[in-house]
């Protein structure tokens, strides 16, 4: 069997005295949706931040195995290099370029390739043919994703003026415009209504099938997670407490105890609050 697309071993991230991530191991595979779940503050976003170069992990190994190429240690790259190697993310608090249009947002995502084609501006400035072709391709790619994510009617709108749900879709489209191998989504369904969540689930499965890329998904919506994930990792207080298929996770004692009080519940915060209180009490 091939090495997995991403393998994380012994990832630890400390902030002063706080151990936000504690020796986590996980893998994400090509053509699979891998979910990362856990109560609020469990350290999920921190794992993403380490993965995508925003934090330097205290220790641990983050290896990206691209087909036919040498493996890369993501933790050694400068932050902006990570997406150039094929790992791209979205943000829990949407980070679009609010005063640029949707189309422009998607073109910014193609910066690295375009910059080379524009010879760092020179070829672009005088409008050489090579640049014009590259630009056209870039626009076509952007248009493909605009249509695919049903954004045609807002393509020329400023991203900041769009509704929350639409902004989430733009962020996914923008990430896909970097041509990733691994798409990391941080709570893409947060703030969506059930119908929108359903559409999102189909979209993610569609992307996985059509492009065969790996998807790493942080999500609190258990319906979505259980419905589309191939594999689920559960973290709590920075530690991984379980791993398995949705069925296995559904019946895992520790997970149920820690987290999934009622599997079909949408609203998590209240449960987690109770849960955390219980845990604290138990520990003391």
């Amino acid at each position: 069997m091939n090495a997995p697309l991403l393998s994380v071993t012994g990832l630890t991230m400390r902030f002063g005295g706080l151990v936000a991530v504690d020796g986590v191991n996980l893998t994400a595979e090509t053509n699979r949706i891998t979910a990362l779940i856990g109560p609020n503050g469990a350290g999920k976003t921190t794992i993403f931040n380490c993965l995508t170069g925003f934090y330097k992990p205290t220790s641990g190994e983050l290896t990206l195995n691209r087909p036919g190429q040498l493996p890369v240690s993501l933790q050694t790259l400068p932050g902006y290099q990570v997406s150039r190697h094929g790992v791209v993310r979205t943000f829990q608090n949407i980070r679009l370029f609010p005063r640029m249009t949707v189309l422009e947002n998607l073109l910014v995502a193609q910066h690295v390739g375009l910059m080379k084609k524009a010879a760092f501006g020179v070829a672009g400035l005088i409008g050489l043919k090579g640049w014009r072709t590259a630009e056209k391709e870039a626009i076509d790619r952007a248009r493909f994703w605009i249509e695919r994510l049903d954004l045609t009617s807002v393509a020329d709108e400023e991203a900041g003026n769009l509704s929350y749900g639409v902004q989430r879709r733009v962020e996914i489209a923008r990430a896909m415009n970097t041509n990733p191998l691994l798409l990391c989504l941080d709570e893409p369904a947060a703030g969506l209504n059930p119908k929108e969540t359903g559409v999102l689930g189909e979209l993610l499965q569609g992307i996985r099938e059509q492009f065969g890329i790996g998807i790493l998904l942080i999500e609190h919506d258990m319906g979505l997670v259980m419905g589309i994930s191939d594999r689920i990792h559960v973290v709590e207080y920075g530690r991984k407490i379980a791993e398995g298929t949705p069925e296995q996770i559904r019946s895992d004692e520790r997970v149920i105890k820690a987290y999934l009080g009622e599997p079909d519940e949408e609203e998590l915060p209240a449960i987690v609050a109770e849960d955390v209180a219980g845990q604290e009490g138990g520990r003391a």
Partner: protein
Amino acid sequence: MAITIQHHLKGSIIGGLIAMVLAVPFIGLYTVSTDQGLVVQTRWSWVVWSGVMVLVGSLAVALLRDVLSARRAGRPNRAAGTKPKRDDALTAKLSKGFAIGITLFAITLPFMPFSDRYIMDVGTTVLIFVLLGMGLNVTVGLAGLLDLGFVAFYAIGAYSFAILSTTLGWGFWVCLPLSGLIAALFGALLSMPILRLRGDYLAIVTLGFGEITRIIILNWQSFTGGPAGISGIPRPSLFGLSFDRRPPEGLTSFHEVTGISFATEHRLMFLYLIALSLVLAAAWVIKRLRALPIGRAWEALREDEIACRSLGINPVASKVSAYAVGGMLGGFAGCFFAARQGFVSPESFTFMESALILAIVVLGGLGSQIGVVIAALFIVLLPEVGREFADFRMIVFGIAMIAIMVWRPGGLLSQRIPTIRLSSIKGEAA
């Protein structure tokens, strides 16, 4: 209505009273140096007048605002409190039209019957400030990096030409690109230590760079001539033709070759046209850059640096390039300024210049090139128009800056025009 007027009146009376209090130590009392030291004199009637003026003025402003907002509320599409759908396409068309109009006007201006030496001179000054504004607009408006020391690049460009021409004898057209490159290099170098800093910290550090540059120029006597500056800087030539009455050695003069009798006007016109070409070239380049990856990365950087990093954009490279490109335009402006004056001294490169250039960029509307043109016209022409009230023009100028910001905090043209539109591309394909 009566109630609001009463309300305004009350406010204005309070305002007038406060103004009178404030006026006491400065308008009511003033000191004069005499042999016996400072002697205090009074002009109490002026204090009363200040109060009355503020009262009347603030009442007028308050009423005017009422009238305006009443009219706005009366418009049907805004009544329901819904956000009116902005028409980008229309704005884009309007500004395109304005751009073409003002360009035509600027090109034909020197050939108009009414245009004289004064108009050419002021026009050239406006153009220099437009060029400076466009340069700073790249750094502040597009890339979102505050710079309070932009005058440094202006000075570096000017002194580059002054020194190269007076020591090596190089001409304007050779030095123009060199000055730009030197300024760009400085921009890149200076940006290095401050890449980690954010907004307000950038303000003081860039201000510091501007001051350091000025102090070095002021004190490095042997190189820059110190406070006395450098004179005898050659004027630009036209394909080797000089516009001086007695051309420098090795040059023939324009009036000898063409047979047109010598007139200083021709030189001023020529300078004006050079400045105009520089501005047009800069405007074109920036317009193109905005739609290229480098320019899109600048704007993206302004919008969200973290998102930029997650998409593979190297923020360091983007910042350095923004400072360098902005600095280069400042350098061009400086080189031209030196050539036009024939003389440079540190006095031309104070913080006041930096502040005015920044004011042009912000008043115009960050990122908007047309905004820069309008604001530069305003900043240069207002003090000119006010020459008759020479004493008070700077006071009016300060008030106007505050008033415009209060009136339009986003600048005159605050709406960003997209660099590309999916709808128009489709139109072409069909």
